[in-house]
């Protein structure tokens, strides 16, 4: 392969193709590029040697590693490229230059970030993902999307700024920008970087940007958004914070709390956004296991495998809800139902995505989540394990059952629409294929789940792990079947809360109501106080001017004749006083 091709980061290729696409008015040519770029990227990645610095640079004395592939970044890069390919196919029916180009550049930035091996390069692509992704929200063109996109951008840029500050501390302390695992959060810069990644990974209380913006994005935009940002953060956590105890609990809480929001949320794309949070929680929890700075091989494999399969099945679920939104104009559960009559293929693909995320045996979620669950139990973390198991039942509730049931089955809304466009079905079909292909046993050695396990960073540990044991299948089936039975019982006895329209308050209430209200109040106060203060100042200064003028102007008090006469007397009196004083002091 020519040298320049081996040094070409697939992410850079995608960004370049994205910039070209923005200026390309010929629709089909542009869309051809958006499909060809990820394909070419996959080819470049597969051919690239691992653990070699393919491209380095020295800028202002900083040594940057711009392209390096290793076992970990390979999996994330491949998943991002596959997601970008499916997204481009999914967007074939649209004609939006900005969205096409920005989606490609956004994917490219995430890929380039995953293949960079120093903090400064990571920071640059970190910020590019923020700036390009905001167009996915803006593409919706609604007022709500505009405001959400501004909040989104502010929070994403804040994450970038924290990352930069952390990188500066690290450089100041060690003299190197190389990305390495932190042993303690007390190391200089570690906490800043931890929070920066935490924002992007949507940690509890930092998660609102996700539920705020993704459901307001355009049909295609939400699909694109679901793949990259949070998983890039997961990648960076694996790289820099393996084995940080704090992550275990943060991850466990992340898996549990969205479950409660998802059950009452009416907008199915928002349910998926909460579900995304819950899934990333599993990965974060896995990263925290093991000793600080090293991690637990089984768990890190689990987090990586989970990220890979999650990118595909969450994309698939967002695609199916996007298809529903495209045809019906809504994803509100209270306005949907019975759509399998019009959109049976979409329903089928949605169910495959739902079964994958619920980790049914023979679907991709099962082979990935098993690694994490096993690692947690091996470490003897009883409470965490019970929390993750609780969250697994929760996933079954909101993503496994709620999403397909309320959109495609349940009460017939009477909507009779067309099936999704062919390109959408094709993208969904490809996603569904990957979900099953990766989830089945390795009947042919090297295929099925072994294909994925072979790619994982700790390959030997992965290949020695058996997901398809009788115990394992039995226990997982018990959990899922009895959870499904609970749904049927609750529905049958009218105990399942009805889907109602409304806004569900989350912690962003603090800044969207109190914070915004406070800012508005201060604005109003300033609007009234400002002019009043100006008037007071003007009054005082004009009065002072009048007084000065009255005293000193040619027609003023001091210029009058009476005073001139009095001056001689005053001069004489003062002279007398001075003489008296002189006399007294000398005497």
């Amino acid at each position, binding site marked *: 392969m020519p040298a320049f091709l081996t040094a070409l980061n697939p992410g850079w290729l995608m960004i370049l193709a994205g910039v070209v696409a923005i200026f390309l008015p010929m629709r089909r040519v542009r869309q051809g590029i958006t499909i060809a770029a990820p394909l070419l990227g996959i080819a470049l990645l597969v051919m690239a040697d691992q653990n070699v610095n393919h491209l380095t640079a020295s800028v202002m004395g900083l040594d940057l590693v711009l392209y390096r592939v290793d076992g970990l970044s390979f999996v994330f890069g491949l998943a991002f490229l596959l997601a970008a390919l499916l997204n481009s196919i999914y967007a074939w029916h*649209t004609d939006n230059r900005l*969205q096409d180009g920005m989606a490609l550049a956004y994917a490219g930035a995430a890929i380039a970030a995953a293949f960079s091996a120093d903090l400064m390069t990571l920071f640059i692509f970190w910020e590019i993902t923020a700036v390009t992704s905001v167009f996915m929200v803006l*593409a919706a063109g609604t007022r*709500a*999307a505009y405001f959400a996109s501004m909040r989104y951008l502010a929070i994403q840029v804040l994450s970038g700024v924290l990352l930069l500050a952390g990188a500066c501390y690290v450089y100041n302390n060690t003299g190197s920008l190389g990305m390495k695992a932190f042993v303690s959060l007390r190391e200089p810069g570690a906490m800043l970087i931890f929070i920066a990644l935490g924002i992007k990974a949507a940690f509890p209380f930092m998660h609102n940007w996700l539920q705020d913006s993704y459901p307001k*994005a355009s*049909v295609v935009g939400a699909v694109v958004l679901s793949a990259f940002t949070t998983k890039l953060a997961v990648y960076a956590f694996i790289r820099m914070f393996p084995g940080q105890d704090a992550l275990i609990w943060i991850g466990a809480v992340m898996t549990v709390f969205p*479950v*409660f929001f998802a*059950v*009452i949320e009416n907008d199915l794309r928002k349910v998926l956004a909460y579900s995304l949070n819950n899934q990333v929680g599993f990965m974060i929890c896995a990263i925290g296991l093991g000793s600080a700075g090293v991690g637990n091989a089984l768990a890190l494999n689990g987090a990586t495998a989970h990220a890979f399969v999650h990118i595909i099945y969450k994309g698939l679920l967002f695609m199916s809800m996007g298809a529903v*939104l495209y*045809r019906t*104009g809504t994803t*509100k559960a209270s*306005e949907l139902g019975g759509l*399998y009559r*019009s959109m*049976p*293929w979409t*329903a089928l693909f949605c169910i495959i995505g739902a079964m994958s995320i619920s980790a049914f045996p023979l679907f991709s979620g099962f082979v990935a989540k098993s690694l994490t669950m096993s690692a947690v139990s091996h470490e003897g973390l009883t409470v965490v394990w019970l929390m993750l*198991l*609780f969250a*697994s*039942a*929760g996933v*079954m*509730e909101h993503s496994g059952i709620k999403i397909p049931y309320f959109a*495609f*089955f349940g009460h017939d*809304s*009477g*909507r*009779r*629409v*067309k*099936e999704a466009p062919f390109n959408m079905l094709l993208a969904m079909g490809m996603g569904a294929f990957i979900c099953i292909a990766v989830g089945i046993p390795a009947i042919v050695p090297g295929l099925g789940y072994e294909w994925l396990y072979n790619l994982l960073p700790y390959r030997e540990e992965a290949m020695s792990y058996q997901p398809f044991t009788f*115990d394992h299948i*039995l*226990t997982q*089936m*018990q*959990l899922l*079947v*009895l959870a499904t*039975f*609970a749904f*049927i*019982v*609750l529905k*049958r006895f009218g*105990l*399942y*809360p009805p889907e*109602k*329209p*409304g*806004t569900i*308050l989350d912690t962003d209430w603090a800044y969207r*109501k109190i914070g915004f209200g406070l800012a508005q109040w201060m604005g109003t106060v300033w609007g009234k106080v400002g002019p009043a203060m100006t008037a007071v100042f003007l009054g005082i200064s004009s009065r002072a001017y009048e007084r000065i003028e009255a005293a000193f102007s040619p027609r003023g008090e001091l210029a009058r004749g009476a005073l001139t006469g009095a001056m001689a007397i005053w001069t004489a009196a003062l002279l007398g006083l001075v003489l008296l004083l002189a006399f007294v002091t000398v005497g």
Partner: protein
Amino acid sequence: MSNDTPETRDKSGRFLSRAAEKAHDLHTVSDEGIHPMAKVLFGWTEAKNIGAIMFWGVGALGAALIVLDVFIQRHEYFGFANWTGFYGLYGFACFTFVVLMGWPLGNLLRRGENYYGDAGGPPADVDPEMPLPPESAQPTYEGDD
């Protein structure tokens, strides 16, 4: 098969045209707006008493999985996870808890759709030929009469 098919067509031709007609049928939406694949893939959901069938069917499957557990010696890291049917009962309990929590949480956290003042229509890239929603799909609010 349509009536204007020539009589003289050979067998393979007739087979192909029949296959093509079948394929055509499978993506031709009926007058009622029902996709033909809906019947093939999900026709079973329209069975009479599907609720009862699902209730007893899934219930029996769950029971069978727990009964199977009696005969299996599992090797769990946590002692309590070895209890017969632990996973099934835990899954049932968690699911029920989450759903039942939906009642009080819904009352506590649900506000009007325009609470933040930004409720609005769908995004710009929805189907331009979208049909109007039927009456039954219009949102209904409690107290609407």
